[in-house]
C-alpha cells in the first residue's frame, strides 16, 4: 500500500524479455459451451417433465373426486359411494396450524438470536450445528420419536402429538431460514440504527427485521407448507380418524385423540380395493399439491419486488 515501488511495474528486478502472446483457439471452448448448455437444458427439461407428469396424473385422476361434498362430508362407509374428505382436510389444517403456532415463533426468535446475538459464539455454533443435523433427520424418525416421547406415555394417539412432530421438523428450518435471511441484511444498516441511539432490540425489530420482512414471511410460509405435506411424522402420532374433529380438548374425536388428516388418509385409501376410496385418495393428493404449489407461487408473486436488501 505504501512502500515505494522499486520499479514501476512492481516486479522489482528487471524482467527477462517476454515471449509474444500466442492466441489460443476458441473452437474447443465453444464446443464445450454448447455441450454444457445442451446438457443443462436436457436435465432441466427432464426434471420439469417428471414433475409435470406427476401433477398431470394427479389432476386427471383426482379432479373427478373434487366437488362440494369432497370438502364438507365424511368419507363413505367402505364399499359405498359418495362422501368426501372434509374431516381430513380440517384435521390437516388444524394440525399444521398448531404446529406452525408452536414452531414459527420459536424458530423465528431462535433465528434472530443466532443471527443477531449469538453469532459466532460457541453456544450459537453448537445450536446451529444441532439445527442443521435436525433438518437432515428423516421425518419418520421424528414420528417414531414423538411416538415414544408422547404417544406411549399418554397411552393414545393425538392430533397434538402430530402437531408437535411437525413442529419438530419446522423449528430448525424456520430458525436457519430466519438466520440466513437476517444475515443478508448488511451490517451498515445495524450500525446506522445503533448510531441513532436506538437500543439493540429496537434496531433488530424495527430496522433489521423490517428490512428482511418479505424474506421472513416467505420463509415462514414455505416452512409451514413444507410440513403440511408430510405423512411419515403423522403415522405414529395423529394416526387417523373416521370422524369429524369436535374440539380441541378431549380424547376420541377430539384433537387430543386420533385426528383425521389428508396425508395419512391418502396413504390409507390409496391401498384399499375400493374404487371410490382410491378416487378420494387421488382427490386428496390433488388438494395437497394444489395447496402447496399455490402457496409457493403466491408467496413468490407477492414478494418478488421485495428484494431491496
Amino acid at each position: 500500500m505504501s512502500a515505494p515501488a522499486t520499479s514501476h511495474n512492481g516486479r522489482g528486478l528487471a524482467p527477462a524479455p517476454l515471449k509474444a502472446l500466442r492466441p489460443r483457439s476458441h473452437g474447443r471452448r465453444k464446443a464445450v459451451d454448447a455441450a454444457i448448455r445442451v446438457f443443462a437444458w436436457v436435465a432441466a427439461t427432464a426434471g420439469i417433465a417428471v414433475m409435470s407428469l406427476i401433477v398431470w396424473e394427479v389432476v386427471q385422476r383426482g379432479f373427478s373426486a373434487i366437488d362440494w361434498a369432497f370438502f364438507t362430508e365424511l368419507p363413505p362407509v367402505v364399499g359405498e359411494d359418495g362422501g368426501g374428505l372434509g374431516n381430513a382436510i380440517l384435521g390437516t389444517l388444524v394440525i399444521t396450524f398448531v404446529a406452525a403456532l408452536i414452531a414459527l415463533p420459536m424458530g423465528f426468535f431462535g433465528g434472530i438470536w443466532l443471527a443477531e446475538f449469538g453469532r459466532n459464539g460457541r453456544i450459537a455454533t453448537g445450536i446451529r450445528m444441532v439445527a442443521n443435523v435436525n433438518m437432515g433427520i428423516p421425518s419418520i424418525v421424528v414420528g417414531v420419536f414423538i411416538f415414544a416421547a408422547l404417544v406411549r406415555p399418554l397411552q393414545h394417539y393425538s392430533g397434538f402429538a402430530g402437531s408437535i412432530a411437525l413442529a419438530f421438523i419446522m423449528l430448525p428450518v424456520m430458525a436457519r431460514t430466519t438466520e440466513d435471511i437476517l444475515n443478508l441484511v448488511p451490517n451498515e444498516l445495524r450500525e446506522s440504527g445503533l448510531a441513532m441511539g436506538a437500543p439493540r432490540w429496537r434496531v433488530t425489530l424495527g430496522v433489521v427485521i423490517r428490512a428482511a420482512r418479505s424474506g421472513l414471511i416467505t420463509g415462514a410460509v414455505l416452512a409451514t407448507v413444507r410440513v403440511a405435506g408430510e405423512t411419515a411424522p403423522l403415522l405414529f402420532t395423529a394416526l387417523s380418524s373416521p370422524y369429524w374433529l369436535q374440539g380441541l380438548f378431549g380424547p376420541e374425536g377430539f384433537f387430543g385423540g386420533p385426528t383425521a388428516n389428508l396425508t395419512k388418509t391418502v396413504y390409507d385409501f390409496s391401498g384399499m380395493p375400493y374404487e371410490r376410496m382410491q378416487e378420494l385418495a387421488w382427490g386428496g393428493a390433488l388438494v395437497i399439491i394444489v395447496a402447496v404449489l399455490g402457496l409457493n407461487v403466491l408467496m413468490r408473486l407477492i414478494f418478488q419486488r421485495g428484494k431491496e436488501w
Partner: protein
Amino acid sequence: MVGTTVSETLDQGGEILVAPPTEVAAGRSAAMDEDFDKLESVISVRGLDFFYGKEQALFDNHLEIKKNRVTAVIGPSGCGKSTHIRTYNRIYELYRDHKATGEVMFGGRNVLSSGTDLLDLRRRIGMIFQKPSPFPMTVFDNVAYGLRQHYKMNKAELSDRVEDALKRSALWEEVKHKLGEPGIALSGGQQQRLCIARCIASEPDVVLMDEPCSAIDPVATAKIEELINALKANYTIVIVTHNMQQAARVSDYTAFFYEGYIVEVGPTTQIFSNPQERQTEDYITGRFS
C-alpha cells in the same frame, strides 16, 4: 510548530498542534497560540489505542475536535481513519473482538468507560456512513426515527421537526411530496441527505461522517459539501475522507493518519500548503496513496 495565520479560517481557528504522536501531550501547551486556546474542544482524544482482535490498528492517538469546526481525517486506505472516529460513538462494539483503550473525553466523561450511556452518547454524537443507509420505512419515519427514540412530542411537533430537519439538509424541496414513500426509493445522493436529516433531527452536538460522499456522484457530493458548510454553524463535524480536495474544501482542521498513528494535525490550509511532517507531504503530493 508554525503559527502563521494563512487565511480567515485560520484567524478564527488559530493553530492546533502539529506533532508526532509521542509529543502531543507535551507539545500542546507550548505550541498553542491564543486563538487556539479560545476554541472549545468538544472531543478530546488522549492515548487512544484500538485492537481488531490481537492486531493493533490505532496507536496512542491524540486529537482535539473543536466546537463548530469541521475536522477532516485523511490518510491512506487502512490507516485507521474510520476506526478512529468509530470510537467516538462506540459503534465498533457491534463487533465482538474490537477493543478500544485510552480516553475519548466528551461532555466531561471518558466515552470508553463502562458507565457510558450509549443511547444518550449516540444521540449526542450522530454518524453518517459511507453507504447511504435509509431505514426500510418512509422518508418521514426515517427522519422521525431518532426524534421518536429520544424525545416526547406530539404529532404536530414531530412533523414540524421532520420538516425542519429536511430543510436544513437541503432535501425538503425534493421530498416534500414524497414523505410517505420509502426512503430507499430516493436517489443515492438524496438518501445520503436523508441520513443527514435523520441524524441532525435529534439535535446531536457532533456529526461524524465516514466518507459520506464516496458512494455518490459529483453533483450530489457538491450538495453535501455545501450542506457541511452550512451545518457547521450549529454542529461540530468530523469527516473522514479519501478525497483530499474535499478535505481542503470543507474542513477547518485536518488530521493526517498513517498506519494507525496521527502523524500531523493542523489547520487545513497549513496541512495542505506547508505540512510539517515528511509523511504528510508525501501523501498530500501523491507520492503514495
